[in-house]
């Protein structure tokens, strides 16, 4: 199974596709519990890659390692290499704050700041030194349009973001993340707390963003993975069992376990 993945990655490299980020034998421990047992994956640039698998299989843990959000959880240990543009970012020498400007993240629960809609988007930019008011206005409008939220909030940009609905709040969080113009956008079940209409809007947003961003998304929703992703990795008990083009995973999986999972036999 793992060999499949490795061959696949080698093929991907051979095809000359550009790799946005990859891991090499990544292990993650929570205290003495090993949640990820040496995962090696490479994600192609400007594509959407989906991480699927049963609950507790390690998808979030793996995703959060990619921009080192697990650093903040007391007692976690991440061993192995994470290459971003040829640089191993799983190293003490890396400025994680700088790195996270390039590798953004959208979380499962919408988490807008207790600030206005406008400030939610501009806050981090200002902290990072962007002071030009016109430029900031422009970014706010552009990102809110990209996140399919502009029409609903353009008249209340300076009201609090906490009054938005769940779906709107999540799209604001997406706008906030892409305002940083990251290379890579990590999304952990971004639509799981949303109604079908908002989910559709978020999915449309992701497909549009693909032109400029590399997206890695954890999802529980098989249809969602099938609809929007180019590649899919199947996680099971802390290992990746299969990684391939999405249509192969769903139509011609190599492994029976994958087939069982995507056809809804467990999970």
């Amino acid at each position, binding site marked *: 199974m793992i060999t499949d993945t490795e061959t696949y990655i080698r093929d991907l490299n051979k095809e000359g596709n550009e790799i946005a980020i990859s891991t090499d034998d990544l292990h993650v421990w929570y205290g003495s519990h090993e949640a990820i047992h040496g995962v090696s994956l490479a994600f192609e640039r400007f594509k959407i890659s989906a991480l699927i698998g049963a609950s507790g299989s390690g998808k979030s843990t793996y995703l959060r390692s990619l*921009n080192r*959000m697990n650093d*903040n959880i*007391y007692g976690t240990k991440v061993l192995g290499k994470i290459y971003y543009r040829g640089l191993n970012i799983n190293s003490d020498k890396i400025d994680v*704050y*700088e*790195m*996270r*400007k390039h590798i*953004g*993240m959208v*979380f499962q*629960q919408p*988490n*807008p*700041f*207790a*600030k206005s809609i406008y400030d939610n988007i501009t*806050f*981090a930019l200002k*902290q*990072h030194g962007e002071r030009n008011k016109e430029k900031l206005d422009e970014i706010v409008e552009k990102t809110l349009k990209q996140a399919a939220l502009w029409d609903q909030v353009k008249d209340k940009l300076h*009201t*609090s973001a*906490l*009054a938005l609905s769940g779906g709107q709040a999540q799209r604001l*969080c997406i706008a*906030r*993340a892409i305002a*940083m113009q990251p290379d890579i956008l990590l999304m952990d079940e971004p639509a799981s707390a949303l109604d079908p209409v908002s989910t559709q809007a978020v999915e449309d947003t992701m497909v549009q963003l693909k032109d400029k961003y590399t997206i890695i998304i954890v999802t529980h929703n098989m249809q969602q993975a099938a609809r929007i992703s180019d590649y899919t990795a199947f996680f099971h008990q802390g290992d990746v069992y299969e990684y391939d083009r999405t249509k192969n995973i769903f139509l011609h999986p190599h492994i029976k376990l994958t087939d069982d999972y995507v056809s809804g036999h467990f999970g």
Partner: protein
Amino acid sequence: MNYKYSKTRRTQLIDRLAYKVFYVIAILIVLILAALLIYILVTGLPHISWHFLTGKSKPFQAGGGIGIQLFNSFYLLILTMLISVPISLGAGIWLSEYAKKNRLTNLIRTTIEILSSLPSVVVGLFGFILFVLQFNLGFSLLSGALALTIFSLPLLTTNVENALQTVHFTQREAGLALGLSRIETVLKIVVPAALPNIVTGMILAAGRVFGEAAALIYTAGQSAPAISFSNWNIFDLSSFLSPFRPAETLAVHIWKVNSEGLIPDASSVSAGASAVLIIAVLLFNFIARYLSNRIYQHMTGVKS
């Protein structure tokens, strides 16, 4: 089936009974409080006049006011908060956001708990020995403010820590994921989100500081020398701003008038002063609620 049915019945009965018991207890507490308030206000309000609020207290004769004591209480409160708010913010932020779970932080937490349960008389005597005698500050506003800082610091620190803890961890993750540093995230995201609770706690603590007497008797002193409101030189003892002058507060005045009984109208002076004190503390509470609602509304656009 029958058994199950009867069990449900019994649970329901107990439920209803418990509800009633708690209801009665709650009503009782409210009644006691209301009776106390009404008594103090009814006996005190008739004695309150402009002359009483602004006039000088008299050592032996009747007809004295509480002007200087009232001013002293507010000024001492301001001095105390100036010292203790920044310290408690720093300590609360450190405990909530940075402290690892180890023996040192356990020790610090235990110390804070012990400090917060110290009787205020003990704090006062400690302040007397350390600030008044050792630091040679004498009976002064500064000694009083330092003693009150010891008194209020544990309260304020715990309040700040608790307020920060109610901010969901996803807010911190959101900040970090945008490439903000820990300190930026804490100061610009977490603290503002906790502000309604922090402000509420601080104003409520201010109410307690305002009404404190025991910690001040041997620190800020029991005399209220005349002060000049036109003298802005803080190093001149007759200046109203001088932190080095002895300053009897309202609460201390009530205590002294009653325990010494040197003035013929002691009971009406203390009743009037008590009413003023209670009204001030009530005001603090209402302001706390009003402000925290306003901040919350401002941040969320939602009325709470």
